[in-house]
């Protein structure tokens, strides 16, 4: 190794990184702290069953065939002529929001939740919760 030119600045300047020790870290100590989720975040679905009309527009537009229309156990909206509501397969859903865009009564939307863990893939068939 030859030292034809000693790069003093290049050797000394990186030590300024030590200055970061006195700065507050940007890491969020999850789960003691949580980050605020932005409004409009595309998380898990919510469906207002009093407004859902069971038209299956969401099933038609879903780009990955993730939505099944399933008979509702307790009828909520007299305008729901098929008595069906959407159930979404989260193994296939890509949270693209197309189903929300085409929903005529605007009952379906994407909420803020995003965490789910389960051992079996059949636990990923979700009926959207009611909006809070």
């Amino acid at each position, binding site marked *: 190794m030859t030292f034809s030119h000693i790069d003093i600045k290049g050797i000394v300047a990186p030590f300024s990184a030590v200055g970061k020790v006195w700065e507050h870290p940007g890491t969020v100590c999850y789960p003691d702290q949580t980050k605020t989720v932005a409004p409009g975040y595309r998380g898990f679905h919510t469906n207002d069953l009093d407004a859902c009309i069971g038209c299956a527009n969401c099933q038609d537009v879903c780009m990955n065939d993730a939505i099944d*229309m*399933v008979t509702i156990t307790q009828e909520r909206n007299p305008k729901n002529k098929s008595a069906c509501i959407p159930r979404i397969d989260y193994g296939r859903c890509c949270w693209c929001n197309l189903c929300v865009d085409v929903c005529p009564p605007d009952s379906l939307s994407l909420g803020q939740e995003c965490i789910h863990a389960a051992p079996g*893939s*059949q636990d990923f068939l979700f009926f959207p919760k009611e909006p809070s």
Partner: protein
Amino acid sequence: MTYLYEQYDVQEKHPRLFAIRTEASTLIETLQEVTTHTEFVTLAQIACTDWIEEERFELTYLLTDRARSRNLMVKVPLPRTGGSLPSLAFRFPQAEVMERDLHEMYGIVFEGNTTLYDFVLEGWHDIPPMRREFDTLAYVREHYDFQRGRTDGKDVKVEQKRRREEAKKRKAEAQQQAQTPEGAPHGE
């Protein structure tokens, strides 16, 4: 550009995008002429579209100029079976990998390209998958399992019709009940 307009029938798709057509037999000659006499000197992409109804592929050699500001499409038709094209790897080293990709995905043979081995798929024994006759849904149904628990989905149009007819039937029955009150003697 004047050379291009004199020698070929140029279609202007956009102020900076042009297209000419040629045949497979004159492909090398056309590209040599265009890259020597016009400003389009570099090969940027080789694209292939499968027109299965017309029994042909259409390859588009996309050339770009030194200023990287304008593009020229050179379109070449090719029969879907038995067609082959000369390789451009002798002139443009980047054509080697592009031709390898098209060979794997469409089955097009590029004569003179010695690197037509696997590009992306390993151990693939079916037909080249980008060809339109390859049905991915049928392949998946044959080789993989679908998600369990999704057998109770309904077709909403069928449900709507069924419920309408049930409602009509119930209404008709209710009307009949209303017209013949209970306990009234029949036939008197």
